[in-house]
């Protein structure tokens, strides 16, 4: 794989990075090879320094979007539908084009500003004879029919807005209750099950888990173990059995 020695802060955001990848590979923006671009995008994220979680999270949201598009495209299309299904990439292409349009506009503006910065403006030089005593603003006239009651309403509105501005996603998390099945425990459990076996069928492994939550946490545990290099997942053919190898 080509070494990507680019820094995260080179890009203004995920769309900027995607446009860069599209242009570098000379991909057609209206027919983006989603598998390839997702691979390159994720490779890039892997090399990113994870110091800045704020920036990182924005890039991760895009990664999730790409993976979601990729999975939609891999799924067999439902033939029963009469009308043509929308390309899962349509929304992304729209965003990319819009972003590209403003990026183009901003480069045009940049050129214009370089030129315009060469003009000088003048401070007022009003002759003494013309200048009257500095006009006093009458605060009473300024305030007009504003009352303390109205000012109070304005302040209350502001306080409301400030509270409304709370992160709409995080603020909906509500109370976090103790997990019934802990991911850490499940990882140890699966690691123990797989250890010693050369490989195990994914279905067999999950088949031993009872309950929805148990299944979900088991699935997450497998992903975690895969990510940390304890397990290797293989699928020899499309829709074939998924095999889990222990690398320990």
């Amino acid at each position, binding site marked *: 794989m080509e070494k990507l020695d680019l820094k995260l802060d080179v890009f*203004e*955001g*995920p*769309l*900027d990075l995607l446009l860069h990848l599209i242009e570098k590979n*000379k991909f*057609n*923006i*209206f*027919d983006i090879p989603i598998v390839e671009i997702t691979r390159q995008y994720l490779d890039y994220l892997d090399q990113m320094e994870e110091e800045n979680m*704020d*920036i990182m999270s*924005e890039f991760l949201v*895009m990664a999730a979007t790409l993976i979601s598009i990729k999975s939609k495209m891999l799924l067999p299309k439902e033939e029963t539908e009469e009308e043509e299904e929308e390309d899962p990439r349509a929304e992304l292409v729209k*965003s990319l*084009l*819009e*972003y*590209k*349009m*403003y*990026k*183009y*506009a*901003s*480069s*045009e*503006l*940049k050129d*214009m*500003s370089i*030129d*315009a*910065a*060469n*003009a*000088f*403006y*003048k*401070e*007022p*030089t*009003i*002759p003494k004879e*013309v200048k009257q005593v500095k006009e006093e603003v009458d605060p009473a006239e300024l305030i007009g029919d504003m009352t303390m009651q109205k000012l109070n309403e304005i302040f209350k*509105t502001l306080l409301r*807005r400030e509270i*409304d*501005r709370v992160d709409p996603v995080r603020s909906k998390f509500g109370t976090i209750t103790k997990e019934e099945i802990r991911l850490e425990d499940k990882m140890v459990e699966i690691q123990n099950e797989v250890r010693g076996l050369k490989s195990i069928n994914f279905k067999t492994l999950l088949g031993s888990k009872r309950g929805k939550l148990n299944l979900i946490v088991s699935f997450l545990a497998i992903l975690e173990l895969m990510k940390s290099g304890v397990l290797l997942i293989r699928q020899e053919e499309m829709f074939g059995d998924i095999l889990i190898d222990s690398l320990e």
Partner: protein
Amino acid sequence: MSDTESQVNIKAAVEAILFATGTAIEATKLMAALGTEEEPIGKKEFKAAIDELMSEYEAEDRGIRLIELDGKYQLCTKNDYYDVLAKIVNMPRKHSLTDVLLETLSIVAYKQPVTRAEIEKIRGVSCNHAVNKLVEYNLICEVGRLDAPGHPILFGTTDDFLRCFGISSMDELPDISPDKIEDFRRQAEAEAGIEVPT
């Protein structure tokens, strides 16, 4: 007062006012000051004088020019004399705009009035810092509140924005209509050497 004579005086008066104040003055204000209560100056007469003044300033031996900013008029130096001016006037160089600021600014310019959320949607990243900087530089400002939950602030561009980019009104912004997107499409076609379905 003959027509020609009054026109001469209008030109001179406009020059005197714009020179002394140094700021952008509304056309309506100039017209009010130039006329008398009995005989206010006409729009047509005023515009003719302004146009004449503008073209006279264009002459090669003039170092200043008359610019229009959204219905206001202002005098400023010609760009050509930046270097010679820099030798005498110790003016701080304008803050250079980073790419992030320029991107945010162009979205505000073309989509105004616009909320932070809309800007973020287009850029794909949060824009608080950029918006605050642009407000600080007086290139954008609050123009109202959106009638929606939370009443988010709506932003628009300022006169300083026009000055910063050397344009008289928003109509002079570079064209980025859907045609431009069409251009991108064609470009993509040419690059890929294929026909892209429209």
